[in-house]
């Protein structure tokens, strides 16, 4: 890509995102002497990414379609505020090739791959064709949208059941259907098509062999505009619920240096074949025989990039910005060394005791962990009202230690310190996973978490359940005795006490 490679100096970056990633990007800008510009919807005026920004501009009403997805407004703000570049973060417009193109047309550097590479690798079917050209193993199956049910049947017969139907434009588990036998294919094909149409505006689906109990392993790549491309080792993201990653780690407990090199070199080949630049991730499935299969490419920074940063000692966002400035990568492949182990938990506003239902609302208490080996990329603060309009991710808590065992112990320690009051979160759910012997032994695959959720919830928090209830009873008595009405009641005749207790304590 020599045409892209003119050095340019970036002085101001508009961050076209919100929450923890917007703050993380702003921090990187400030560390590089670049002015970060924040944008916000009406629901986010008091969000942490706005409070920590240098400049901040309103986009529009709360719905993402009227704010964070409004490429036109973002470009207007970039122009009027004098931004040289836009960083899209993840989600929202980060994989929108039209937006990337509009940025370049406006003379504003889009910090990510060129639109052409995004189009080439963003469609799952086109990416499968690219994988074939790059000589990268992929799951058996079609590399084009299925034209008809008959074609689906013939591909399935060829590769053998069980198979997986997937939306070509897919993501987040939508438009996906596992099919174990011929008889179920028709209804699954139709359901997947209509779900894909609804979710992505395209009913293209394709079919691939279903890998049993696979691990999700992904390779981080970084490519500059001078033809250099590196792989930064793998991340294991097998702990998923409904195809959404819950815990990520680096390195994977089962990837050998030799396998890492093979997967890494395949990933680099794919990226280079499509003229890819900047940060990207190639996702693979790994079966229990150690075979890996290309799954898809994410043409942006990933949520879970911190675990790679901790084990490589690098800062991916710094490098993204330097690449976008036209600089050559300051490292060679042999400089990349993995040291230690990192685990990330995605802290969500959701209620694991109530079907993981989202729990927006006001954060009334916040005690955050710290100390050795703990990194938190966080988008919340005490008093912040988590809006109901966006993704429920509050924070990414990351633990780093010399070994996987120590990193898990450290994360459990940090989770014990963490208190989020006012809304429900999945903090206790992480304690459960991290205490599970299968997780601790790295006996995980993409179905692991759903299986764990079918088991009864064993003890995994500090002290016994009985002991905690005992303490809770004493604490409750303390707080109730502090209530003005109760305090009065204690010195009043019984009837008054009775009504005070009713008024104050009897929520049923």
């Amino acid at each position, binding site marked *: 890509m020599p045409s892209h490679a003119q050095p340019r100096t970036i002085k101001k970056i508009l961050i076209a995102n919100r929450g923890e990633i917007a703050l993380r990007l702003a921090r990187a800008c400030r560390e590089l002497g670049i002015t970060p510009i924040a944008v916000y919807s009406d629901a986010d005026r008091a969000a942490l990414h706005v409070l920590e920004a240098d400049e901040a501009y309103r986009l529009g009403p709360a719905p993402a379609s009227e704010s964070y997805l409004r490429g036109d407004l973002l470009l207007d703000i970039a122009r009027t505020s004098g931004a040289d570049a836009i960083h899209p973060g993840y989600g929202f417009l980060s994989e929108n090739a039209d937006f990337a193109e509009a940025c370049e047309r406006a003379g504003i550097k889009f910090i990510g791959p060129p639109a052409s590479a995004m189009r080439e690798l963003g469609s799952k079917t086109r990416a499968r064709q690219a994988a074939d050209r790059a000589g990268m193993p992929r799951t058996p199956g079609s590399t084009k949208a299925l034209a008809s049910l008959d074609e689906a049947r013939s591909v399935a017969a060829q590769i053998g059941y069980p198979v997986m139907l997937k939306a070509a434009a897919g993501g987040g588990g939508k438009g996906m259907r596992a099919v174990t036998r011929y008889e179920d294919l028709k209804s699954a094909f139709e359901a997947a098509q209509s779900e894909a149409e609804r979710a992505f505006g395209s009913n293209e689906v394709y079919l691939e062999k279903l890998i049993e109990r696979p691990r999700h392993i992904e390779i981080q790549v970084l490519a500059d505009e001078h033809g250099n491309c590196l792989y930064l080792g793998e991340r294991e993201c097998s702990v998923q619920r409904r195809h959404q990653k819950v815990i990520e780690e680096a390195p994977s407990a089962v990837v050998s240096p030799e396998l890492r090199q093979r997967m890494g070199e395949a990933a680099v080949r794919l990226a280079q074949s499509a003229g890819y630049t900047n940060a990207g991730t190639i996702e693979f499935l790994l079966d229990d025989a150690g075979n890996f299969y290309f799954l898809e490419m994410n043409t942006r920074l990933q949520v879970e990039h911190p675990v790679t940063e901790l084990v490589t000692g690098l800062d991916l966002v710094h490098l993204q910005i330097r690449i976008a400035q036209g600089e050559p990568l300051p490292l060679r492949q042999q400089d990349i060394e993995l040291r230690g182990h990192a685990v990330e938990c995605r802290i969500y506003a959701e209620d694991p005791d109530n079907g993981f239902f989202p729990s927006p609302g006001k954060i009334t208490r916040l005690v955050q962990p710290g100390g050795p080996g703990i990194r938190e990329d966080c988008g919340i603060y005490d008093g912040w009202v988590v809006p109901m309009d966006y993704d429920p991710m509050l924070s990414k808590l990351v633990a780093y230690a010399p070994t996987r065992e120590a990193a898990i112990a450290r994360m459990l320690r940090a989770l014990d310190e963490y208190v989020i009051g006012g809304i429900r979160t999945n903090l206790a759910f992480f304690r459960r996973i991290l205490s599970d012997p299968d997780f601790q032994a790295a006996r995980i695959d993409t179905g692991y978490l759903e299986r764990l959720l079918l088991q009864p919830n064993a003890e995994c928090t500090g002290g016994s359940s009985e002991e905690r209830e005992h303490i*809770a009873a004493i604490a409750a008595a303390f707080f109730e005795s502090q209530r003005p009405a109760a305090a009065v009641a204690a010195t009043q005749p019984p009837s008054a006490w009775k009504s005070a207790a009713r008024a104050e304590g009897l929520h049923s």
Partner: protein
Amino acid sequence: MKLEIEIAGRVRVVDFTPGETTTSVDGLVIPLESRLLRPGVLSLLVDGRAWRVVLEEGASGPAILVAGERIPYSVNDPRSLKTRRAHAAGEDGPRSIKASMPGRVVRVLVKPGDAVEAHEGIVVIEAMKMQNELKSPKQGKIAEIRVKPGDTVAAGDVLAIVE
């Protein structure tokens, strides 16, 4: 001050006097050192063990956060306990359907006067890109619908009444 604290269906009688260095739970005397750090955040040293507890008050009643667990409780008035229980157990009167979390109403599936089955969907609420169907707690007739699509609701808001 004696208080009856109900946790997970079990009532404990706690004798707690602010400033005292002991408390008793179900008659058992325990050394205690309590220090309120700020409103709703308490440090307890119970028999040498250190605990930081947080009071949470919400639409679904008060709860204590302790050692990573959220433990809801209620304070019982001993004299009215039995009657309350008897009352709560009854399925006869009108029952309200409450929002279990804040969100936006996206659909109302019934209208006043409709006959509904137990567990039939009544209102669909959306928050953070997920939809939740709130169901009727019993068989009966919709007496009232208090929300319409587009409304924003808080946790605990009554959405409809079934009788």
